[in-house]
């Protein structure tokens, strides 16, 4: 009997502790994983304590007055309505407190914005709705990939139980070495996004047409998760950020692996493709890049996201469709996809021209995309 009870209690305790692991009812900033993060955390604590002290002071006085100066207790109102001394004091004292607060805020800010002398520089591009990472300088230079939400559609629409990292998991996380200064250059491809990783105390808007920067140096290995923080349209909630901070050795191994992968991926543009092979490859590209707007059935979500199935453009001359996919369409949600490779573009265009109600029977070859780029 008591054994059962103990087991039940242990089970409850385990359930409770796993809830803690998921940080339910978390009351404060996420545990910082960088020095700047710690300084921000401390700064917040200082300001909060100052506010709390003022709060207790002001509302202590108010509370006493509300209790002691009630008419029902027979209190008669005094008729004073001015007191220069008090008025000067309660202007000057807050001013002094504010100056005291501004000091640590200034030093923290200056440290936070000092992006000089990074070990690794990574360009982060916000797309509707995914992130692109290009390692520009330092170890891993040349690595480049896109990072998409990995949570399956059926979890979002309540057709499957939600995983532990629901909406905070991606296919290709950003990988960086621990203890190195990582400079992040942000830009946007279409609209404004914001790259936000709470534990690393980084949030930087990604403005289309401009480059802005931020930096972090992770103190601990681990996986840090964040999200896009600037409303960027329909799937704003569905473009998370995952940063894997690994040891120097693991990072070197990862870089080697990526380089190999990229070499394998650098498909020979002279390889001859047939329609079936292109369409098969294209379906994968479509799933990764197009499906959010144009939908798995190609019917889109008119009028913002037009249908591809039966579309005049998709069933018309190849050159028009290649041009649209390469350059996007000004004033609509259709972005430029020129960041994809020629093979990927050729494949996805071929796929859309031969799927659903579209039966052109034509293949678009990578060489045609190469030509159109020029």
């Amino acid at each position, binding site marked *: 009997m008591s054994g059962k009870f103990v087991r039940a209690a242990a089970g409850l305790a385990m359930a409770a502790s796993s809830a803690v692991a998921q940080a339910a009812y978390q009351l404060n900033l996420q545990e910082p994983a960088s020095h700047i993060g710690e300084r921000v955390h401390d700064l917040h604590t200082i300001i909060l304590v100052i506010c709390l002290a003022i709060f207790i002071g002001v*509302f202590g006085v108010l509370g006493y007055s509300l209790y002691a100066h009630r008419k029902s207790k027979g209190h008669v109102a005094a008729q004073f309505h001015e007191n220069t001394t008090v008025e000067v004091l*309660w202007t000057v004292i807050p001013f002094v407190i504010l100056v005291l607060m501004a000091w640590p805020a200034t030093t923290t800010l200056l440290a936070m914005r000092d992006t000089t002398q990074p070990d690794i520089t990574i360009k982060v591009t916000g797309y509707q709705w995914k992130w692109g990472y290009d390692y520009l300088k330092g170890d891993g230079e040349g690595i480049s990939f896109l990072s998409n939400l990995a949570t399956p559609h059926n979890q979002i629409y309540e057709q499957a139980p939600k995983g532990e990292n629901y909406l905070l998991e991606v296919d290709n996380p950003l990988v960086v070495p621990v203890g190195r200064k990582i400079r992040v250059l942000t830009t946007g491809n279409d609209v404004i996004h914001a790259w936000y990783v709470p534990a690393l105390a980084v949030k930087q808007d990604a403005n289309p047409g401009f480059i802005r920067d931020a930096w972090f140096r992770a103190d601990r290995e681990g996986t840090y998760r964040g999200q896009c923080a600037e409303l960027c349209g329909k799937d704003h909630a569905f473009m998370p950020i995952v940063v894997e901070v690994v040891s120097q050795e693991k990072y070197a191994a990862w870089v080697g692996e990526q380089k190999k992968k990229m070499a394998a991926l650098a498909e020979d543009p002279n390889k001859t493709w047939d329609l079936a092979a292109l369409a098969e490859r294209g379906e994968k590209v479509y799933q990764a890049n197009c499906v959010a707007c144009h939908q798995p059935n190609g019917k889109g979500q008119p009028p913002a996201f037009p249908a591809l199935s039966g579309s005049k453009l998709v069933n018309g001359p190849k050159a028009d469709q290649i041009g649209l996919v390469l350059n996007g369409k000004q004033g609509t949600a259709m972005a430029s996809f020129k960041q994809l490779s020629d093979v990927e573009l050729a494949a996805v265009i071929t796929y859309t021209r031969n799927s659903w109600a579209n039966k052109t029977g034509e293949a678009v070859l990578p060489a045609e995309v190469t030509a159109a780029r020029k």
Partner: protein
Amino acid sequence: MSAVLDTHGQHDEHAHHPSGIMRWVTTTNHKDIGTMYLWFSFTMFIVGGIMALVIRTELFAPGMQIVDPDRFNAMTTYHGLIMVFGAIMPAFVGFANWLIPMQIGAPDMAFPRMNNLSFWLLPPAALLLIAAQFVPGGGAGVGWTMYAPLTVQAPMSMDLTIFAVHILGMSSIMGSINIITTIFNMRAPGMGMMRIPLFCWTWVITAFLLIAVMPVLAGAVTMTLTDRHFGTAFFNAAGGGDPVLYQHIFWFFGHPEVYIIAIPAFGVISQIIPAFSRKPLFGYTSMVYATASIAVLSFLVWAHHMYTVGMPVEAQLYFMYATVLIAVPTGVKVFNWVATIWRGSLTFETPMLFALGFLFLFTMGGFTGLVLSIVPIDVQLHDTYYVVAHFHYVMVAGALFSAFGGIYFWLPKWTGRMYNETLGKWHFWLSFIFFNVTFFVQHFLGLAGMPRRIPDYSLQFAEFNVISSIGAWGFGLAQILFLYIVVSTIRSGKPAEQRQWEGADSLEWTHLPSPPPYHSFETPPVLR
């Protein structure tokens, strides 16, 4: 002030006006127009509130349940626009219309016909905002701040929204011209500028803010319109523009807008607190100066809404210092109210409860504002639920609570009937408790990193979102009680006295009966 009654005003036969619907369409009477503003504002409050409940219901649990992401974004956008431009701003214009002529001893507003026009511009604007939900593509999911270049992609509802903003701006500018002219030129003899009730002063300052910034907003949305349809590139880098330019222009409007909402609320509170403390307002002069300096400072701090756009660190430092400076005059106001209460003779009728609720919650919003003004902390909290919590403490607890307090305070004057005190207190406590249940927990969500404007969220945010959604429904339902109280007061409330609150000493209480005649102060009151 003397207690001489204006006997001329008591003859209702002076009130020649059409009856039925035409009375309201053609009226130039400040009291009729004030009433229409207030009912319009309440209607919009319900519409915006329903949108808020759609948002909170979708956020009750992780996963997508009741709306798709586009519709969700549209709900957050129009909830904000409707509450700011449709509910809160017209509410205080309604107070201004009703009270300013009576408080300064004027017969009506300076430009009665323009007053009629500035009200009747509002319903078409509201219809545009509502119609935007039903055009192809649905409402524009761009946020109430309407940041470019997302707005350039948005469906045609964006154009309806832009025109609605234009019309609302025209209405506000006309209303402001009217208010300034009325207060400057139509005061009764002896009613000097430093003698008018503080509510009038707050409206003078607000009206100047409105005239200064509404054209700026109109400019920003017009640039968006031409970017969308006429090939300009104000906000498009490829054409030599800059998307961040929009944010600078918007917030040059947007920050003063915060005070456009808050300052008349300060005015209402500065009438209520002395009345129930039975003691004059502490530091009238310093209140006027503090309000004016808040207004001036509000033009100098706009970029604190944009700390993460990537401006130079020097600019961040400047905006941080300027922003924390606002805490000084705001603090002065709070201290003045506390000093007014100090050693008064206090009673706690519903208006006073709302005023105290305002004082408590607005101060909380002020503290979180101070936290957000510090750049390194704001970088963590910008665009998270912490910001959502912060501005709802300022807007709902600040402006809305003060509007509720004002309604309870002046309803006996306006209708000549007294509301039910017990029900009024219920309304206060339900609103106060559910407001905190809804929004207090959002501070924690924001600190933990939940971005705002997302229809779905990860599992660690689930618990607080449940609490917040329950609070929102409670808060929404409590407002049905408010409607009931107001309607039953108008229909069957007990007759109110001329000076229903013994501590109230402005002209509408000392010189006019409850309800006041249709045309009051046709001859100016005699003031000593």
